[in-house]
């Protein structure tokens, strides 16, 4: 199993992975590269990761989620590399017998990803600059020698 890819994410493929006749509700989350009013002319984000740890940590994270929602079927994929604005960097799919479980499991996974999965992003901006993003979503201060 790999949770990482450098290709565009396919919601349909993830849906097919979790599909089951016993599941009546499916919650999907997509995180997409944004260029909103808080950003400064972002054209793309370059995603990098501690790849071996991402694989191990996703395994632990999904085991935790399945412990909490044993009937849920969960699939997740994180994309790495340069992702243009509007395209998804992460896709999470949680199917469950009932919708509350599906929503809760999906939300649990994305919140845990933000805490636990070692991935980093560098904003590529229209002015040619490149800025590491800190976890609050704002760019990190540039170190003095860069």
């Amino acid at each position, binding site marked *: 199993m790999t949770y990482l890819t450098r290709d565009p994410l396919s919601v349909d493929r993830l849906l097919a992975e979790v599909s089951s006749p016993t599941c009546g509700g499916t919650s999907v989350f997509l995180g997409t590269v944004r260029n909103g009013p808080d950003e400064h002319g972002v054209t793309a984000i370059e995603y990098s990761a501690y790849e071996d740890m991402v694989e191990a940590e996703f395994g632990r994270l999904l085991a935790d989620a399945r412990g909490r929602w044993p009937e849920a079927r969960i699939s997740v994929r994180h994309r790495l590399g340069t992702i243009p604005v509007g395209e998804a960097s*992460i896709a999470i799919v949680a199917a469950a017998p009932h919708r509350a479980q599906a929503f809760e499991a999906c939300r649990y996974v994305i919140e845990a990803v933000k805490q636990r999965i070692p991935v980093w992003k560098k904003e590529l901006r229209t002015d040619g600059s490149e800025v590491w993003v800190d976890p609050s979503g704002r760019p990190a201060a540039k*170190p003095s020698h860069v």
Partner: protein
Amino acid sequence: MPATVNPATLATVRVRFFARYAELVGRSEAEVSLPLPATVGDVVRRVREDFPGAGDLPERPLAAVNLKQAKLDARVQDGDEVALLPPIAGG
């Protein structure tokens, strides 16, 4: 007469740097040896002293040992992989 070092009490760990930390240190990995018992914090101190640019690393970075997050007082063993992780920004 110089003190002799017992090789059994020396640990060699592989240290990995990612993202902004790799840019600061100018490399993505290094090997450091240090006397046992040693902690993740000892590895961080050694790295900050030994590598140009690593002085800009935080004194208490997020760290992982063998692909799992670890506190700075966690013990390291010979052969461990210690990673220094910038604030996580995935998803």
